[in-house]
Structures are given as structure tokens and as C-alpha cells.
């Protein structure tokens, strides 16, 4: 009994070390991303003072005023007045009076800045947009995961039969369709034959009689972009689920389970699926991280007011605070999704994390 407890304790220590290690790496990666984001957008050609206002009559004085207001007249960092065009500058300036350290200091205080274009706090704009994106992606991902897995399981169970070939063909097709093209086709089909709205999140200028009406309107707007998203991701999930399950079903422990007397359903539920889910967990977690940004195409086609659209606009306007905020959000969500996948893996698969 004492032996048992000791084994458990050492495993607990292993797990904590594993956890601390992973979290430390995640923090380090985020720090790196913050630095990279800052310099990346300032190396890009373009000037926020001119890109924001598309008026050729904008005077030099007005541009200078805009620069002063946003603090863009300060040196980017010691020794560099500007990165594009590259202008070496004074190295003896107070570091705290450079753009980089002002940005870093603000971040430490939890301030992400004010959008140059909308004059609203970045956090507020991103929060609003993120919610819309999560709504779209949440609906699409859940459908894609459920349908993709179901189709993958069916195909693996009926491997090398017409059912399998049909499901494989469909999934490969769905997977290889260009997202924007599929979106345009569905938009055309849905708006023409189903009378669905062509874009946006709600009907403009409408006054809802009650919450129910508002929800129905939202669902009608959500349907086509979510469907596009589902079809695009369903193929990937199906293919991975199928190949993973086919591999597992060929394992000897499945044969052992049959010899023990388990029926097909028990084998699938107790032995095959649990093992086949391991690669699926990784893919799902990683996709969730990336798709916060990955919905740009769908959001553009359907004029969905999400994060992808916001990033697209911010790039065009060289809206540095928005870009920095959005990219930081994307990086953090990818890193957190990775971290969750790894931790979940350590929990689901006893072979991981215990050396």
C-alpha cells in the first residue's frame, strides 16, 4: 500500500513539472510574439497618417498633427527614428520616450491602445468582433466535428466498401474546395432559392418585436457562413478520424477484445474510439486556435462583422494598435489551444508526460 502511494506521488511531481514546463514555454512564446508584432507592422510599407485618410488634399501639417496625436513622431526605438524607410537616429534618447517602450509599458498596464481609425479602445472593438467570430466558428466547428467524426467512424467501420469510398470521395472534395469559392456558390444558392440574406449579421434598420424574432434573424444570417465553414472543415475531420480509426482497428488489442467476447459496439466504444480520438484532439485544438484568424475569407464573402474582417481593414489602414492587438489575440489563442491540446493529451494518454 505504501508502495502504491509513493508511485502516485512521483507521478504527481512528474505531472506538475510537465505542466510548469509547458506554461513557461507558452509565456516565452507570447513575449516573442509581442516584440515581433510591433516591429513587423512598422517594417511594412505604408504610413498610418496617409493610409487612414484617403484624401489626396490632406496637408502636410494635418498629417504631422495626426502623427503627433498617435505618438508616431517619436523614434521607434533607440538608434532608429523609423523602420520604413530605414532612418538611423539618435541612440542616446530616453528609452521610455520611444514607441516600442511606450507600447510595452501600456501593455503591462493592460492598455492595448486606441484604434487610429475608429478612435475606440482596441479591446472594445476586438471584443465585439471576437464575439461575432466565435459565434460563427462555434456553430461551424461543432457541426464539422460532429458530422466529420460520425462520417469518419462510419467509413472506418465499413472500410474498403462502397460506403467508405463514397464518404472518402465526398470528404476529399469538401476538403479541397477553395473556401471563398464555396462561400460564393452557397451565397448564390442560399439567397436565390432559400431567400436567405446575402450578408451581415442582422437585417439593417429592423426593429425586432421580441427576442425570438431577433434570434431567428441571427440564425438566418448565420446559416450560410456556418455551412461553408462546416463543409470546409468536415472533410479534414472525417479523413483524420477515418485513418486513425482504421489504424486502431488493425491493432492486436482489438483482436484480443474480440477473442475476449466483446461485441462490435463494445469494441468500438471501449477500445477503438478512445485510442483513435488522440490525433483528433490535437487537430481540433489546433484548428480552434487558428480559425479565430482563419475565417477571414468567409467573413469577407458574407460581410460578417468578425475578427477576420477587422484585421483585413486594419491592415489596409495601417491601424497599428488594432493590428498589434488582433495579432496578439491570435497568437495567444493559438498558443493557448496548443497548451490545452498538450495538457489534454497528457491526461488522455498515460504514455505522455511521464518519463
Amino acid at each position: 500500500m505504501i508502495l502504491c502511494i509513493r508511485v502516485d506521488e512521483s507521478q504527481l511531481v512528474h505531472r506538475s513539472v510537465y505542466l510548469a514546463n509547458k506554461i513557461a514555454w507558452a509565456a516565452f512564446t507570447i513575449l516573442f510574439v509581442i516584440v515581433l508584432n510591433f516591429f513587423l507592422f512598422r517594417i511594412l510599407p505604408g504610413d498610418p497618417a496617409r493610409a487612414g485618410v484617403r484624401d489626396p488634399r490632406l496637408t502636410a501639417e494635418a498629417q504631422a498633427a495626426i502623427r503627433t496625436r498617435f505618438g508616431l513622431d517619436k523614434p521607434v526605438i533607440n538608434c532608429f527614428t523609423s523602420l520604413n524607410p530605414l532612418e538611423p537616429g539618435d541612440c542616446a534618447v530616453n528609452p521610455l520616450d520611444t514607441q516600442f517602450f511606450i507600447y510595452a509599458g501600456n501593455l503591462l498596464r493592460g492598455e492595448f491602445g486606441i484604434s487610429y481609425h475608429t478612435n475606440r479602445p482596441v479591446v472594445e472593438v476586438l471584443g465585439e468582433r471576437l464575439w461575432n467570430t466565435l459565434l460563427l466558428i462555434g456553430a461551424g466547428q461543432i457541426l464539422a466535428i460532429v458530422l466529420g467524426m460520425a462520417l469518419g467512424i462510419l467509413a472506418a467501420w465499413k472500410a474498403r466498401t462502397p460506403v467508405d469510398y463514397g464518404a472518402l470521395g465526398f470528404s476529399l472534395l469538401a476538403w479541397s474546395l477553395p473556401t471563398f469559392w464555396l462561400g460564393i456558390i452557397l451565397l448564390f444558392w442560399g439567397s436565390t432559392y432559400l431567400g436567405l440574406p446575402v450578408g451581415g449579421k442582422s437585417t439593417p434598420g429592423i426593429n425586432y418585436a421580441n427576442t425570438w424574432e431577433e434570434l431567428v434573424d441571427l440564425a438566418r444570417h448565420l446559416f450560410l457562413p456556418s455551412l461553408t465553414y462546416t463543409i470546409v472543415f468536415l472533410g479534414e475531420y472525417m479523413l483524420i478520424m477515418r485513418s486513425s480509426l482504421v489504424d486502431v482497428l488493425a491493432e492486436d488489442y482489438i483482436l484480443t477484445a474480440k477473442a475476449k467476447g466483446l461485441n462490435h459496439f463494445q469494441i468500438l466504444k471501449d477500445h477503438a474510439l478512445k485510442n483513435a480520438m488522440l490525433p483528433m484532439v490535437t487537430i481540433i485544438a489546433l484548428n480552434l486556435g487558428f480559425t479565430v484568424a482563419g475565417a477571414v475569407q468567409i467573413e469577407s464573402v458574407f460581410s460578417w462583422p468578425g475578427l477576420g474582417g477587422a484585421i483585413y481593414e486594419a491592415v489596409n489602414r495601417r491601424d497599428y494598435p488594432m493590428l498589434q492587438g488582433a495579432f496578439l489575440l491570435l497568437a495567444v489563442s493559438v498558443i493557448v489551444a496548443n497548451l490545452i491540446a498538450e495538457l489534454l493529451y497528457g491526461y488522455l494518454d498515460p504514455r505522455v508526460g511521464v518519463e
Partner: protein
Amino acid sequence: MPEPLLRVRGVRKLFPIKAAGWRTHAQRVVHAVDDVNFDLGAGEALALVGESGCGKSTLALTLLGLEPLTAGSIRFEGQELAGAPPEVWRLARRHIQMIFQDPYESLNPLMTVGEIVAEPLQVHKLATATEERRRRIMAALDDAGLKPAQHFMRRFPHELSGGQRQRVAIAAALVLEPRLLVADEPVSMLDVSIRAEILNLLADLKVRRQIAVLFITHDLGTVSAIADRIAVMYLGRIVEIGAVNDVLTTPQHPYTQALLSVVPAPNPRLRRQHIILQGETPDPVNLPAGCRFHPRCPVAIARCHQVDPVLQAVGAGHAVACIRTTELRTNTL
């Protein structure tokens, strides 16, 4: 004569293969197991010996109902299993258990040792009381040589050595208290140093628990440690069967003689002349006419090309499928 525990008659397993041509209708088949007959008594151990691809593993899978057989009869305790409905098989599986070759593959990596051993009880709804179940699991682990049992209960397969894993597989088979254990190459994936331990364990279980063992191997050197009788298989058919002592000391079939001649003997004075078989095992799709061993047989004569020999008794419980047995024996005497 009382019915033996397991009675195998005329068992055939043919695997159809897809025709290469688009419009070829001629169905070609692999003769994996082709007319196999043998009996196995309660508490008896029969070793099934043959080179890889001779159909011994396929035979094991058909005996467990994991591959439907093409023809023949399998009677277990008087109950016909060939073509039997799933309920009959389910009941039979409680008494027929199997151990596979590779303990690194045959254990589910996500289940603890305790769960793996408990599963057969759950499946067959036996020992439903927690205490009773725990007692049986511990007893099985203990009997399989995993001591102290509770130390292993919460371990995962990856934390164990190959020998320990095979013991877990054995414990999972033992927990149902089976009457027949089919062991398919149970030691071939293990280090040589622990093979003897596992073989001794199986031999010990056979005696103590009166379990009949069908021991499948390609290694004649491991046979005498456990088996009472030997059946030698060649290309899906038994060519010689008899008591271990008879077959090992006076092999009658040229194939058995060739197999035995290359088993390393510890005593160099007893070293025999090695008989190295020429050529390769014939394609099980296009079996040679007559005796299927004749293309490689060192003593084949013209008649072997035409006559397909059947098993014929040459002594008490000793049978050989070779038309020249009597003739060759008189010559050597």
C-alpha cells in the same frame, strides 16, 4: 470413446483473392487451412508446429471464431461451433481464451492492468460483486506471476516489461477460468532469457488448473517444455501428429525430419546431419498436384506427384501423411 474437449474435423479456411484482370471471373483462393483434423483432451497440451505462412495462426483464429471457416466442424465440449449463432460463440468464448504473439500490441495502451484483466468478467457478466471481482482479478494476476498483484493493478502497459505484459495477457485469459487456452507464438516476441519463464508458467497452469493448451509455434525447441503432443503443419495441412517423444525421437515425415535436423542440439555429440530443404514453400494459391511437399522433398518419387497422401497411423497415436513412410522405415531398419 468419450468426446474430447475439442474435436476438429475437416476444417478448411480459404481466402478468396481479387482477380487481377477487370473481367476475369475465375475466382482464385488461398488455401490457408486445408482439411485439418485433430482432437484435444481436457488438460492436454498440443503443439502446432510449422514454418511461417503454413496456416497455424489462421487455424487458431478460426477456432476462436475470429475468422469464419469455409468448411468443417469444430466441436467444443460436444457443442458444434462451426456456423453457430453469436450466442453460442459468446458462451464458448468464456471457456476458450487466447494469448497473442506480441504483448506490445495486444494490450490497450489506455487501460490499466486492473481494467484489462477485469474486462472479460464485465463482458461475460461474471463476478458482478465488487469484492468478488477484485478477488478474481488478484487471483489471476497472482497465478500469472505478477506479484504482489495490487502493485500492478493501477499500472499501464507501457510501464511494464515485455515478459510482464505477456503475463498480463495471460492473467486476462485466466480470469475467466477457461478450459482451453490458445497461445499463438506466446514467446517469440520475448527476450530469450524470459521465454523459459513464460513457458514454465503455461506448463504449470496446464497442470494446476487443468487447462488444455493449443500451443502454436515455429520453434521446435520450445515444444517439449509444455506439450504432450505435436502436430506438424505444412501448407495448411497436418503432415504428422503424435506424442512429443515419438515425433521428436522418431520423426517419420521428411518435413518433420528436416525441421528437427536444424534444431540446435546442446550436446555436440548428438548433432545430426542438417537437412536443408531446397526451393521455397509453394504458392498456397497454386498448390502442387499430389503431395504438397513433393517439390521440396528429398525422398520424393514419381508417385508423389500424383497421390495426395492422407494421415495414416504408424504407431499408437502417431500418424503421418506420406506414402513412403513404411517403405523408408523398412529401409533404415
